[in-house]
């Protein structure tokens, strides 16, 4: 069984309440599919070419700050149309998965002793973990937007600066 391959055959979900600002910062066209060029991103005043880019950003932001926020049970969730295996760049995707796997509450050696069914369960746990860290990241963006809306206005570096904030 190839663990990474199995993980990448999944598509995470996010809380629909973030959709508004996700769209604000992401090129509308190609949103879910996501293939807008750099020029289009810039000219539309957006920071991300695709939704998975902002999702990856949010996950990293959550991981970096160790801020994991479960999506409420009753929340409406939006799922990515494309599996993780289609996300780019691959090395970044792998880095994020690396970060998440190390947060998994299970010994790697024990993992290897599990049968396929149990592994599948762990993979779903990992996807949930990813969603929770991404949700944490999104929450940080949301709270910044609320507390300091001007931070994102006319500031090309805003998302870079946000990475540096504790």
């Amino acid at each position, binding site marked *: 069984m190839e663990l990474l391959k199995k993980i990448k055959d999944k598509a995470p979900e996010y809380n629909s309440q973030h959709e508004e600002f996700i769209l604000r910062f992401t090129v509308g066209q190609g949103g879910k599919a996501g293939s807008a060029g750099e020029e289009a991103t810039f000219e539309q005043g957006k920071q991300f070419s695709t939704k998975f880019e902002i999702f990856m950003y949010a996950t990293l932001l959550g991981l970096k700050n160790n801020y994991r926020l479960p999506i409420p049970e009753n929340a409406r969730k939006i799922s990515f149309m494309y599996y993780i295996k289609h996300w780019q760049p691959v090395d970044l995707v792998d880095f994020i998965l690396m970060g998440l*796997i190390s947060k998994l509450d299970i010994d790697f*050696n024990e993992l290897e002793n599990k*049968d396929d069914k149990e592994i599948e369960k762990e993979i779903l746990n990992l996807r949930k973990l990813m969603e929770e860290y991404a949700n944490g990241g999104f929450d940080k963006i949301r709270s910044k937007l609320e507390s300091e809306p001007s931070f994102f206005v006319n500031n090309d570096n805003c998302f870079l600066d946000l990475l540096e904030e504790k």
Partner: protein
Amino acid sequence: MIIEKIELVNFMCYHGKDNVMDFTEGINVIIGDNGYGKSKLYDAFYWVLYDQVFVPEKKEFQNTKAVKSKIISDKAKADAKDGKVSASVSITFHNLEKDNVYILERKYTANIMDGKIMETNDSEFTIMKKDLSYLNAKMVNDEEEKRRIVSNILPPKMKDYLWFQGEQVESIIDFNKQDTLTKAINVLSSITRYDELKEIAIAAAKSGNTEYDREVRRLSKDIDKSEQLGKEKTKLEERIADLQKDETEVIENLSRAETRCETLLNKQADAQKVNELQERKKGVLKLLNELNETLKEEQFSFHGKMFRNKWVLKGTESLHAEFSNRFIAYENKKLEKAAETKAMLTAESEIVKKLQTRLPLDVPEPIYVQRMLDEEKCLVCDREAKKNSDAWQKIKELIDRPDIKLKSTDSEPIVKQNFTDDFKRLYQNGLALTHRIEEIDSDIKDTLKKISNINAKIRDANKEMNKVEEDIQKLLSDTSLTSEDALDILNEYSIQNKKARDFKDEQNKITQQIEHFKTGLRSVNDQLKELVTGEIPKWLIEKKDVLNDFEIIAGNTRERVFNNLITQLEKEANGHYEAMTSGNKSARGQIKLRRLPNGNFMPEIIDNNGVPLLGSNTSNLILVKLATIMAIISAKSNDGVVSFYTLITDAPTSVFGEDYTIGFCKTISKVYRQSIIMSKEFYKNQNLRTELLTNSEIKIGKVYTITPSIPETERSNRNNLSTKIEALN
């Protein structure tokens, strides 16, 4: 003669009867913003004397016949019931010297029937004359006398220089028309008498010469020869006259081309500058475009670099460290397990090595071996083998052996899954990216620095662009040039310059030809003289000489008088120009009236070394023109012109701005006994207004403000429009 009062009744925007303004000697000022009724007031003066008003749409003065009821206030027309409605303006002129008063009134009446206006064509014009020693005024009925009075109040030839609108200044003194000054001098001086004298002298000299020639022929010893020489002489004279005509024409052309060149030269320097600035603008624009393109590319890739250059990983080093720890632990555990297994296998193989290996497998068969164990006896060698004794154990090994063998040959995996490759891949990828993370800060810094450098360059380029734009705009507004004009000027200048050179060559050629024919003429005259047999009467010779001298003297005198007038005019103009520009340092140079080849004069501005100043701005040129107009009037001060006539001008100052306004008022109040000017400069600028009212160098008359009841922008319906007149002093 001063204007004492103007009264307007229902005249255009001046609704009602309360529109009265009194005037005194000095400068009288009517202050109002654009669209407040200043020009209509100027119209009122003009209408009374000339039955015409200025129609802005047509840019010309039109008779009452053409404008008809437009003269009447819209409010008066709207308010009127059926019957008559009329507009009138009356002006009171006071001749201080003779102490009599003329009241000139013009009135236009229309009929209103069922709310419809029935227009009439003509206005009524009345003049009341009143000697102040008498109580009652007398109406002047004789049309001829009325015309004479109007002509006395404002002689037609003086009109242009005394009553004018700001925008007319350009055409009154037109730098493009070389005879502008000559015409003005002709109007204002007795120079034409000298021209007549010159004509008489030429005719007299001609008649003297003819009489002398006749006598020469009469005394000839060879009549035929004389006859032939006489014909030759006439032919030569005709030829010379023709050539002189051509010469005059060429000189005219030359003058025109030179004047045009001069005008263009003035503009050419500006045009050259405009052109240079346009080129510079193009250069800066190109640089700006390139910089913007580079910046755009940088900005495009800036967002991309978040992912491409992994900036998004900034500060995430710990993730790999964490994974690394777990991965190492995992690896170690896996290695430990592998080592354990290996050790076990080694131990097993050691055991196996020690096992009974003499007999092949399952020999003896397990059932016999089991029997041996049960009976505690070896059935092969028939020796006793007590339970758990060495012998018994040896026999038991024969049964256990298959198991041991099975273990050692077992290739089944240690764990259910093997994720080593995946974990390793993640570890290695993380390691590689962690090295990149260390470089992110300097990478971001470099990129930001690059963008900031480009931005700085763009700022500089924009600054330069603004400066160039500003320079261009200033130059364009100072010179009233467009970029296209500038190119046209440069092209036309080279054409006119070539024309001037060609005319000059032609003139030289004609002059040489004339000289050649004159030599021929002298030779013919000498030959004719040689044929004379008797003696030509002395009186005849003297008469001819005197008349020829007279021709020269008359010509020179005319020239001298004209030059004196020009000198005087130049002096006066400079006096006014200096006075008007004293308040502004940017005004420069002095006025020089330059003589053209054909004897006309053109005003130009020269510096202290007599070098013409090129590229003078519009304000300066207008000031030169105003100074020249004033000079034409003030140069005649000995004739009482200035004290007799009133200057009325609408917005003369609007073309040169506030800096010169006070200087202009001072000069005006010095030059003219009375002036009435309409101006907006004092409307918004309170300081300027205070200075007008208090400056001791300005001889101030009455000052009024005029204010419309409805602002110009809201005048879709003028039926309520009236104008309020307020006296400020």
